[in-house]
């Protein structure tokens, strides 16, 4: 069975209580479906996801475009950045 990995940073890590975890992969996980899967598992992530971006394999995903998660992808929840 295929999986994909999700990484949590900053407030997303606090809300999920984890740095990373595996999810079961299936066909057609886009932005909306991914959000739904994450909130089902971690309800506290809901407000964090409202202001976060997704990165897939270290590339930011545009929320307006259609994209889907592939097996073994590394997905990251990127809350608003504050480096510098």
């Amino acid at each position: 069975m295929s999986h994909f990995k999700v990484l949590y940073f900053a407030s997303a890590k606090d809300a999920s209580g984890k740095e990373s975890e595996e999810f079961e992969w299936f066909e057609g996980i886009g932005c909306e479906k991914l959000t739904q899967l994450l909130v089902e598992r971690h309800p506290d992530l809901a407000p964090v996801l409202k202001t976060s971006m997704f990165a897939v394999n270290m590339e930011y995903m545009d929320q307006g475009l259609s994209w889907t998660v592939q097996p073994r992808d590394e997905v990251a929840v990127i809350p608003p950045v504050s480096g510098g």
Partner: protein
Amino acid sequence: MAMKDIVKITADTISLDEIAKSVQDPKAGAISTFSGTTRDNFEDKVVKTLAYEAYIPMAEKSMKSLITAARSKWDDLIHVAIVHKIGDCPVGETSVVIAVSSGHRQQGLEAVHWLIDELKVQVPIWKKEVYATGGPDGSDGGEVWKANSSLP
């Protein structure tokens, strides 16, 4: 001439001197730098320390892309270094250094300004402010993840 693109994310103390030296070159007429340092206050609160975390491989990739983009905007750049600290960064300590050597001053100064602006918008690094407790400002401590303004 081999041009160096130096990016590093490190838990060690970072040294402006060392990073500025890493971009020295006999063809350079100018070295421009920016250092971000931890301030002792945010609005009315006393900041005790900052802690940074990063999505390290993506942050390094993102910093390399910024350097590539800068080189396409400014053709006079010689060596470019971007170094960011993670972990605790007490008041007065340096969290980030950008250093650029260039043939002449104009492009190096512009590139440093652009690189720090873009780093703050794009690079996946996060800062948590830890406030002092029981200070004269009456703050009750606590900590908060910051967000950079998307305004320039």
